[in-house]
């Protein structure tokens, strides 16, 4: 009986650890994706602006 409750507790702990790891991987992936998106939008903005910013009349 004691053995059984120990096993259940260990399964719960292992499942929680696995879930935490999944969440961590997901968070890292979202961060990397957003970072990449920011770089793409920044690069595209620079290309679209081109020399227009530098040539602006005062």
């Amino acid at each position, binding site marked *: 009986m004691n053995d059984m409750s120990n*096993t259940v507790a*260990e*399964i719960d702990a292992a499942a929680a650890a696995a879930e935490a790891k*999944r969440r961590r991987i997901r968070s890292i*992936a979202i961060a990397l994706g957003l970072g990449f998106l920011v770089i793409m*939008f920044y690069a*595209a903005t620079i*290309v679209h602006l081109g020399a227009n910013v530098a040539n602006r009349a005062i």
Partner: protein
Amino acid sequence: MTTAASDAGVGQSLKVLEPGVGDFVTLMKPRVMTLVILTALAGMLLAPGAIHPVIGLIAMIAISVGAGASGALNMWYDADIDENMARTAARPIPRGRVTPDEALQFGGVLSVMSVLTLGVLVNWVAGALLALTIAYYLFIYTMWLKRLTPHNIVVGGAAGAFPPMIGWAAVTGTVSLESILLFLIIFMWTPPHFWALALLRSRDYERVGVPMLPVVAGPAETRKQILLYSIVLVPLAILPAFIGLGGLTYGIASVGLGAIFLWFAFNVWRITEGREADKACKQLFWFSILYLYALFAILVVEGAMNRLLA
């Protein structure tokens, strides 16, 4: 003792369920993505007009990610079929490496982001075509036609044929007859390619209730349809050489490779029994991949050369 044994078992089983980066890459169907990249690049390089290399690269990334996202959504919806077919049983969802919810979120987020990126940073015609491609593949093909009609591949094949049109639209902001021709080549190529595979895997499709043509109409009708589609495909694939899309190299390759394609399709129609029949289907299936890759690779090289020398 019981605890130690259970502990090892629990650890092992949970380890199997943890997803890795590779599982999410697999969800995006990387082999299909390579064809999407190649055909979209061909559309982009052959289109009249100029595109800044950075914007062109962003367009290619968005198109590739959009294609991968639709692959993930397809695997999410088809998980029940995939687990019962030998060809697809090792995919991440049937293996328990990725949960269906994770695949849906992954595919959904990437779909929205790829369309918005293409629309905002390149142009909205290309963005709308990418959105149409993803929606067509998920709703028209995966959810509706695949389980309903033996013409699933014919109509659904349009989804795989859109990328050169999207690449073209990324440069020109329009859809033209030339880009529709590139679309039609892939559209007409898809049925003989998939039906050659379906002839080999018809028992799998029958077991999971997918009405592929060999299951519904029988192998003889499928073989006839493969030959008929091939007869339409080969001249269509030669046409770019006559309207200025392809050069001399493309013209020669499309005739030579087209003749081999027709020969293999003829063999599939002619040889109907035994191992030789299976061999003919395998030959056509593998050659059809080489055929499409080779034609579009030549278009890419010719398009790139023309732009560099212009």
